[in-house]
């Protein structure tokens, strides 16, 4: 028994931490989808961009500056992506907005590739969270323990924000009915911008945790986590924040179990298998609600 635990604890830890990091991204997806009914393919790349921002800023300035600046940068990036790539297409069919988001992701990736000429950059070590600790048999980085806690804290804050503030109420209204809430005089664009900002903010935090664990940053580093996070969002019921978080943790953990079993080739494929499974048997996900189409 002891052996079993000591053998598998590392997998579990890795799963939980990566799950938490997925959660951070997933929230961004799920909120945007809730409001715009749009899969923001560029979100994963915003996540990567945050990492690069950190790399470059940390090279020139002390940590207590580079951390907040990175977050600020990411938030601005997320905001401008929305402004440039999505706002002009408000009235366009959903398909072309989605295409635009793919294009945006393509652009961001190529841009990052150009700036770094595709070479891996070493992520700076953020002091406290990257020191190693030992939980009885398993040795790991502090971030592994910090991630889940931080995730939950942030989610709780977010839920508070959504349920008890004016802007939060506006968000809920918009996600319920776009047109009506516009007629009700809610400033749609403001709400959407805020949503993207929150999403990017969490992505920035997520990237700090993620890359503290997995220190090499490449232009495509965010693509896979991004997709998985989206799957998590769908799994938990798109539009529902707790759903996204739970989905993310499940995916993170199971993914590592798959690796533990030795089916390493399928560790990514599994995520999508899960997605398709859920889409077929419960298209609304764990916590999603059904939308009727008027005929």
């Amino acid at each position, binding site marked *: 028994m002891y052996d079993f635990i000591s053998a598998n604890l590392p*997998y579990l830890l890795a799963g939980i931490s990566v799950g938490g990091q997925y959660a951070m991204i997933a929230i961004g997806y799920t909120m945007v989808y809730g409001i715009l009914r749009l899969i923001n393919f560029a979100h994963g790349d915003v996540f990567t961009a945050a990492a690069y921002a950190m790399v470059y800023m940390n090279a020139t300035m002390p940590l207590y500056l580079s951390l907040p600046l990175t977050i600020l940068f990411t938030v601005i990036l997320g905001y401008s992506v929305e402004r440039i790539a999505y706002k002009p297409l408000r009235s366009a069919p959903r398909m072309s907005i989605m295409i635009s988001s793919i294009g945006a992701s393509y652009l961001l990736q190529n841009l990052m590739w150009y700036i770094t000429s595709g070479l891996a950059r*070493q992520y700076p070590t953020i002091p406290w969270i990257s020191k190693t600790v030992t939980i009885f048999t398993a040795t790991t980085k502090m971030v592994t323990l910090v991630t889940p806690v931080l995730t939950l804290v942030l989610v709780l804050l977010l839920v508070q924000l959504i349920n008890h503030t004016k802007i939060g109420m506006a968000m809920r209204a918009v996600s319920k009915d776009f047109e009506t809430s516009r007629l009700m005089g809610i400033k749609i664009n403001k709400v959407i911008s805020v949503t993207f900002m929150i999403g990017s903010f969490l992505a920035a935090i997520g990237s700090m945790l993620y890359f503290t*664990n997995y*220190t*090499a940053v*490449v232009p495509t580093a965010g693509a896979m986590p991004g997709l998985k996070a989206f799957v998590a969002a769908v799994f938990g019921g798109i539009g529902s924040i707790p759903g996204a978080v739970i989905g993310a943790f499940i995916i993170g953990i199971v993914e590592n179990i798959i690796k*533990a079993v030795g089916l390493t080739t399928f560790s990514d494929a599994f995520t999508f298998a899960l997605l398709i499974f859920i889409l077929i048997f419960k298209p609304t996900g764990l916590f999603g609600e059904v939308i009727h189409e008027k005929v």
Partner: protein
Amino acid sequence: MKKCLALILTVVMLLPVMALAENYAGEIVIGIYEPASGTSGAGGKQEALGIYYANYLAPTVELSDGVYKVKLVEVDNQSSPDKAPSAAQQLVSEGVSIVLGSYGSGVCIAAADIFDAAGLVAIGISCTNPQVTLGNPLYYRICYLDPFQGTVLANYAKDEFNATKAYTLAELGNDYDVGLAYYFAEAFKGLGGEVKGEEFPKGNSDFTAYLTSAVNSGAEIIFAPTSVEYATQIITQAAANGITIPIMAGDTWDNVRILEAAEGTDLSISVSTFFDEGDTGALAAEFVTGFKAWLNENPEKLANNGGSDIVAAVSALGYDGYMVALEALKRADSGDRDDIADVVAEVTYEGVTGFIAFDENGDAIRDQAFIIKTDNETGTWQFVKVQNVSDIAK
């Protein structure tokens, strides 16, 4: 609509002309087929540096009908076999006389047929996978092969760490990784050891799971002949997870980034390579000093070398590769692809990485590999030993 169509048509008309326009009078063009970006970008750049340095020393080649300027044309194969063909095509259409490269075997294999179709000789520099030259008559190479390297490392693992259980980790679909891991495993089994092998998908960044299963498998040695990008992650995560099993790898790990990653950790990392900076041979010493000086005079070059002036083995190989190409040109006494193809097999050259001659496959006849290990205090390489073929029962 009509206008834009007309425009397109005219452009299309003009294309053939543009295509024919390229030609170099009084020049001989040597193509550099290296990754300047992507997973093996770092290594590719270092290899290219070696070539450029050689070109800086020997910018011309003298043939019977006068002295020709040697022009280098570099294309970036982006370290991915699917981008490689069009890059190779570009070299072919640039009218190069001979090609050097590449770092990493997959891209070479992907390009081999295209070079072959164009009657263009390619000299592989650090692509160690047998498949590069196997069945590609015009592909030659100046480095040793994975079966050899694998055997060397397997023996080293046995002798140095008297390991009986090994864990190999390779990138899914990377011919270099998979190949070397395979030959290592074969050799290691041959020596009575047992091997557990795993592969991680492209772009993977979470190695804790793999390292854990390495530990669980009770391996006494981890063999991870991955490209540098993954190497750094493996090292940092191994350190973070308190792994103490010695790690071994092939020539790709002979790179500054590895030193950076390993510095300050208590991991033992040993690597086999083509060339040792501390080599006291006259040629080698001269090259090292000259190369360092050349690097240091230009920050951009220094940056391409990974920000330090530590001489990577691939740079030395790159240097030799260029010189071999020149030898071939001289021997053929023309820049004509066919003439070169006729003679390149007979070329011999005393390079900084040792004496180079080709066997019937077009592989270099090499009999020694250097083994070096990281010194985690000073962040430098530490020469361990020269492993000769003769030392090991093949």
